[in-house]
């Protein structure tokens, strides 16, 4: 407990406190400086885009991994976790090598906002896939057969039977991807070039402020990020909670049939 406090609570608390050092007005001022504001805008927008792309692609990949079969599938499945295991700076370097100035593909998107999006896509890849996959695996195939026997074709079955059961997992994964994306630092450092107002994400901005001893400004933006993450996580938690069911007295018999 003490341990937790020393390591986690006090330091985090310090961030929030420091950000409030100059009062609420000072806080807003720090956040609204042109480069801080630009970094926040870029971070939030890029993360939202990335979260949405992941929603679609992640579900698609999970589907292919569960419902399809082809040689090498288990290797592909294992690879999904690579972004989790790979240090972010390596990820950044790796993406720069492929999609930067010396790209063998001739594709150079370095120092652009697209680069930021690509980097974020890399690090958030596993999130939606890994939350949807187990749900898909456990899905009762009987329901799909029942739908077929009632006349539903494959698309209708997917839309009305499978998808609704996947939505909670999809949302959860997307939310996690978003919070990860807004926090990302290492992978964007190299490929984005960190041009203020253009490709600088908030984490990099904060870093810059720390290095130049503007800890208050850093703390302010950091607090914004923390709050954003908190909102998403709490939102997810609320969504996950099962709807309040009517009490189990529903099971009490009427009409004498079990």
């Amino acid at each position, binding site marked *: 407990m003490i341990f937790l406090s020393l390591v986690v609570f006090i*330091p985090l608390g310090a961030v929030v406190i420091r950000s409030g050092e100059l009062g609420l007005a000072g806080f807003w001022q720090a956040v609204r400086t042109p480069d801080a504001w630009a970094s926040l805008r870029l971070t939030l927008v890029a993360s939202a885009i990335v979260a949405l792309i992941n929603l679609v692609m992640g579900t698609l990949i999970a589907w292919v*991994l569960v419902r399809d079969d082809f040689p090498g599938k288990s290797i592909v499945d*294992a690879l999904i976790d*690579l972004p989790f295991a790979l240090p972010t700076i*390596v990820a950044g370097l790796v993406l720069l090598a492929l999609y930067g100035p010396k790209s063998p593909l001739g594709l150079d998107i370095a120092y652009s906002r697209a680069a930021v999006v690509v980097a974020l896509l890399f690090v958030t890849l596993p999130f939606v896939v890994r939350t949807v996959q187990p749900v898909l695996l456990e899905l009762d195939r009987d329901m799909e057969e029942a739908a077929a026997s009632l006349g539903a074709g494959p698309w209708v079955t997917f839309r009305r039977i499978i998808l609704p059961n996947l939505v909670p997992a999809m949302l959860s994964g997307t939310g996690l991807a978003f919070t990860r994306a807004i926090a990302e*630092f290492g992978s964007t450092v190299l490929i984005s070039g960190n041009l203020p107002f253009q490709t600088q994400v908030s984490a990099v901005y904060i870093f810059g402020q720390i290095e130049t001893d503007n800890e208050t400004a850093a703390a302010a933006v950091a607090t914004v990020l923390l709050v954003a993450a908190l909102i998403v996580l709490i939102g997810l938690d609320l969504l996950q909670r099962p709807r309040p069911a009517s009490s189990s007295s529903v099971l009490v018999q009427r009409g004498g049939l079990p």
Partner: protein
Amino acid sequence: MIKHALRWTALLYLFFLLVLPVALIAWRTFGDGIAPFIESLSSPEALHAFQITFVVALWAVAINTAFGVGMAILLARHSFPGKRLLNAAIDLPLAVSPVVVGLALVLVYGRFAPVGGWLESLGLQVIFSTPGMVLATVFVSLPLVVRAVEPVLNELGTEQEQAAHTLGAGPWPTFLRITVPGIRAALAYGVVLCLARALGEYGAIAVVSGRLVGQTQTLTLFVEERFQNFREGDAFAAATALALIAVITLLVTKLLHPKHRSMDSR
């Protein structure tokens, strides 16, 4: 057919986003043979980076293992007011950006900060030194061991431990001879995750270490610094080394826990 369209979309996406970049790194590194690779990593700075990376990681893993097991037992076996809060708090590090972690630690343990200043007067420098790096690494990998061990503890139930008690075993022997063997696999899994995370940490370490080459430069920092100084060969070599470590830890975790899904390493 739809099935093939889906399959190929997925595979192409993964190929361009995941496979190709990683394959390229290896190709770039070993493009001129293995000698330059070894050479890059044999420089004194590189060797020092290896050393400090492992030292910090091992400390962090040791601390988090002790903490993790203790916390897991607390959460699985006891109930107390505020338990839900504690539970949520443990997951907190995963939601925080690494640079924010670094910032937080600097604000509290930095030279001019309340706690840090006091420790400094006792001769213990936290920030810009190893203890700070260990602290940062502990923070970011905090939940990993706890979350790996806790569900297993829940599943195991208390029956075996109760049986041991009725047979006369005290709390410590029970723990060593009943509990630990039960959570062995999960613990190993959590430790490997923690280690991987610790070795790969960049953002928090970047802030907290001061990035002093030859002194507090971990492998990840080494990669970045070399790249910025146009010593790309060295950077790629170190990156490949880290990638290899990542792949190995991936394989080990698959072996230890084939159905498990989450790992996190920044």
